[in-house]
């Protein structure tokens, strides 16, 4: 536990110093939202139906950027080896990295979200908190898979390009569930939302557990 918080703290200090991760995620997220505005010219009613999709495309791709940066930080100077030398279990190391990836993604998303509301002419009300809550779950799902996949893709020659290839098919359930849940919140028709939330929760539990158990295979030499 102490070592996990040491890892998270270290990542935060580094990020505060160079701000590379959050700014690139932020820029990318905003750009995606803007591009989608041009791609879909819609009326207000349709907007509520389409908007969740654009939001989650922005979040998914920004997440990939963030994961790549996080990994680059550990491969620089072979720092990952330094972590592997320490008396911390591979699984705990994994959880620490998931936590710091999650934190950075959430920070970027929390800034993108109000912009999303403005661009789509939605209202700033309680619904926004609910959307943020769904974003927490979805982001945790993406972070849990993405952290271990980025470690795997780091071993290939094409590193950063490999990550989306591996990650996007695997995060289909997270994206579907997050988009649908967000759509229900925005349109006000929340009859089916609990099943989506269960899907998200299930995904997180399954992937955190599975990755915790096999992470050592992903980092071994």
């Amino acid at each position, binding site marked *: 536990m102490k070592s996990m918080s040491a890892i998270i703290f270290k990542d935060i200090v580094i990020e505060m110093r160079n701000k590379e991760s959050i700014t690139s995620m932020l820029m990318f997220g905003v750009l995606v939202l803007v591009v989608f505005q041009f791609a879909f010219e819609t009326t207000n009613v349709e907007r509520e139906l389409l908007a969740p999709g654009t939001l989650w495309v922005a979040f998914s791709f920004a997440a990939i950027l963030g994961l790549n940066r996080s990994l680059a930080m550990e491969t620089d100077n072979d720092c990952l080896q330094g972590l592997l030398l320490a008396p911390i279990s591979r699984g705990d190391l994994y959880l620490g990295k998931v936590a710091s990836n999650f934190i950075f993604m959430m920070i970027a998303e929390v800034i993108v979200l109000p912009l999303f509301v403005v661009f789509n002419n939605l209202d700033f009300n309680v619904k926004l908190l609910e959307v943020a809550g769904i974003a927490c779950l979805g982001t945790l799902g993406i972070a849990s898979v993405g952290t271990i*996949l980025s470690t795997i*893709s780091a071993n*290939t020659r094409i590193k950063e390009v490999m990550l989306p*290839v591996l990650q996007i098919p*695997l995060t*289909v359930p997270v994206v*579907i569930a997050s988009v649908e849940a967000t759509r229900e919140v925005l349109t006000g028709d929340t009859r089916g939302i609990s099943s989506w939330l269960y*899907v998200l929760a299930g995904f997180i539990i399954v992937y955190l557990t599975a990755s915790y158990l*096999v992470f050592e295979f992903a980092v071994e030499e």
Partner: protein
Amino acid sequence: MKLKVLAILTFVSMLTALYMIFLYAPRETLQGDAMRIFYIHVPLAITGYVSAFLLFIGVVGFLRTGDLKWDRFGETAAALGVAFISAQLITGSLWARPIWGPWWVWDSRTTLQLVLDLIFIAYFMLRSYLPDPQKRAKLSAVFGLLGMIDVPMNYLSIYLFRTQHPQPVISPGGGGVAPEMALTMTASFIAVGFLYAYLFNRRLAIAKVEEEVDYLEQVMLAHE
């Protein structure tokens, strides 16, 4: 020997099945001859999931024992998975267009198959960038494991999605199942099953030889 027997069985059963599909089974009342493709498609779809299951076995086997034979097993399952699913998706699309209209329908079955195909393809892409056999086996096993765990979750979420956003579903037609149809479907399943088993064994044998060649190459290089 085993391979020859399988080859003969496959050949015979495929001929029988083809005969039954095209000549024996009656014309379906609602969709006419278009229906016949389902005799092939349903078994093909199942092989996709069978491949996923076999890959899962392979990766678990490898992660537990470190023996490369499990890696070969899993890789063969994935290869057949890509082949059979891609064949199904492409023939399905080609068939659907002249008969029903659209090139592609995002119903649950096709979407699931497409995502599974993408996972298999990603598996191979990962492997192609990992030259060392041990590392390749290990890392693709981890990805394979995570990918195959995803399959039931994909199933769940895509089905949920389609229940909430129904689309016209293209499926085996409505007019009741005549006994000849059931028989044809069974014959088709058997034929596809034999084809799968034959190809699986053949490919596994080839993979083993390939690995031996690689090993000899390494030994030669080391002695230079």
